[in-house]
């Protein structure tokens, strides 16, 4: 009844997708990543100034958070401004469990997956409600649900109300106090990036990207849109919950307005947009640029307004000159530059009328922007 092999096909050719940039490009890329990883690992060993290692922890927390956010919002196109729900839920869960079980020392980090788990459980009904609508409506619903959670944190007895939850004292040497947080943050950040990469190349990831481009068309090609979106939302929530737990240990106190912080989602979204929304490396790059800058800004200009004006100016520049983000725009410029170089090198083919040598078409866009 159905066709298994259409008529008129020529010899079957195995479809091998060439890695963008070829083998050399791939090696170069892997090498670059290895160097970055080594730098990240030895950073707190070389730079022992607590101020800078603190910058490092904050940055890694945001790298993990933005990678988790992008894994849902960037891939599916559903922009969530309610991920602080998961961040806060993770922080409070870990906080309450630490208090209840009187956990001390390095074992506290074992509680992080539990924080993630509770955040993921929250993500299920949250997603089932919010993912029924799209675009602007989805954004507004996520904000509304976020405020419900912040209100609950303020008003329930078990959350400590206005007082919030404070961490126990950790008996680590002051000199390398930040290091345990740093390395756990690094594991979370790298783990999330690897997971996002695996998802990007999987059938599940392709379905998410198809939903981003045209959800109704995707459904008509067999994509179970709700299931796919919800799964990504829950995975993203799980990681954000763990990140929130780590943040609580590091900061030492969770208040309703800092654990459920409306500017958390704005920062995460801006980092993703700065680097390149929906790409793999863009959001990470955005976090690596923006978070240290924000920290440096805050301590350099003690008058808070100057710091904010400076950040605002940077955003204006980004929107004016890099509207699609650093990675996509940079890649486009690179492709254009390569095309110009190729055109200059290309000799005029023999027998061709003069002038045709310059008509070499620009390099075709191959592969999605990573």
């Amino acid at each position, binding site marked *: 009844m159905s066709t298994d092999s259409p008529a008129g096909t020529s010899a079957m050719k195995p479809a091998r997708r060439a890695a963008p940039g070829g083998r050399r490009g791939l090696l170069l890329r892997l090498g670059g990543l290895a160097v970055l990883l080594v730098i990240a690992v030895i950073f707190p060993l070389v730079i022992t100034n607590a101020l800078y290692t603190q910058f490092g922890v904050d940055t890694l927390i945001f790298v993990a958070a933005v990678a988790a956010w992008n894994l849902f919002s960037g891939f599916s196109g559903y922009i969530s401004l309610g991920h602080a729900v998961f961040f806060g839920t993770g922080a409070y869960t870990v906080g309450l469990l630490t208090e209840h079980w009187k956990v001390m020392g390095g074992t506290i980090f074992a509680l992080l997956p539990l924080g993630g788990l509770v955040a993921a459980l929250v993500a299920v009904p949250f997603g089932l409600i919010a993912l029924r609508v799209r675009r602007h409506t989805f954004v507004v619903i996520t904000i509304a649900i976020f405020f419900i959670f912040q209100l609950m944190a303020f008003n329930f007895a078990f959350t400590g109300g206005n007082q919030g939850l404070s961490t126990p004292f950790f008996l680590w040497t002051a000199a390398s106090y930040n290091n345990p947080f740093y390395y756990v943050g690094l594991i979370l950040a790298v783990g999330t990036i690897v997971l996002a990469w695996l998802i990007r190349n999987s059938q599940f990831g392709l379905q998410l990207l198809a939903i981003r481009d045209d959800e109704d068309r995707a459904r*008509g*090609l067999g994509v179970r849109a709700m299931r796919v979106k919800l799964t990504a939302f829950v995975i993203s929530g799980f990681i954000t919950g763990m990140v929130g737990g780590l943040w609580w240990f590091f900061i030492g106190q969770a208040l309703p307005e800092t654990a459920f912080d409306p500017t958390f989602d704005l920062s995460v979204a801006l980092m993703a947009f700065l680097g390149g929304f929906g790409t793999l490396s863009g959001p990470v790059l955005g976090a690596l640029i923006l978070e240290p800058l924000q920290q440096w800004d805050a301590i350099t200009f003690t008058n808070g307004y100057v710091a904010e004006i400076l950040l605002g100016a940077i955003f204006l520049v980004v929107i004016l000159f890099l509207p699609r983000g650093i990675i996509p725009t940079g890649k486009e410029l690179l492709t254009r530059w390569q095309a110009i170089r190729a055109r200059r090198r290309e000799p005029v083919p023999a027998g061709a009328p003069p002038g045709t040598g310059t008509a070499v078409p620009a390099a075709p866009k191959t592969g999605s922007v990573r």
Partner: protein
Amino acid sequence: MTALLRTDAVSKSFGGVQALDGAAIEVAEGSIAGLIGPNGSGKTTLFNVITGYEHVDHGHVYLGGKEITNSAPDKVFAAGIGRTFQLTRVFSRLTVMENMIVAAQRHERGQGRLRNPLARAGGPATRRRAMELLEFTGIAHHSGALAETLSYGQRKLLELSYVLMASPSIVLLDEPAGGVNPTLITMIADRIRQLNEQGTTFLIVEHNMDFVMGLCDNVTVLDYGTAVVSGPPGVVRTDPRVLDAYLGTAEDDDDIPVG
């Protein structure tokens, strides 16, 4: 011949507009069926109702004797109905090959073993099949290009290709020849015939009368959401009710059928 796809007195209204009014059509298994009618006669709405994009108010839809009324689009696709859209809808920021793999999911499943959910999309078998189909439609050399870089005609071919990934028993084409150059129209008609010879059934909405009359075994005319005439092209072409349907609406001058 038995009917592979059948709609039974399907009605659908949008507010005060009765888009479908007891529309009953039958598509025989192994045939190429045409669906024509003036603008606004409910052709696309009927497609939407069959493929689950719209819910019916009344009536039933059957595929091979099984009722599929109001099934979700992904279930309809899994049941064996593929469709294209009037305005091409490809995944513009994915490559052509990735577009194909999106539609392939059902194809790879059911191997009995649990699949690794994070395995690389598109195994060798899927990619080989995708490449075969792309060669069949003539856009294989674009497999690595982003779909947004394709021309309009190439997008139409990509739509036809990815719909075929799941080996549907029936394919619904919404204006496959619309806005496409004459050479490509001939090629698309050729491909449809070849697929049909191998057993795929087609239901085609089209305004290009030469295309419809030359290709289809059976043509159904829709007017005001009701199927008024159904029969072989030669019969439908001369039926007074068809001329009436087309000439009855003053705005649709360019849709006058041949003959």
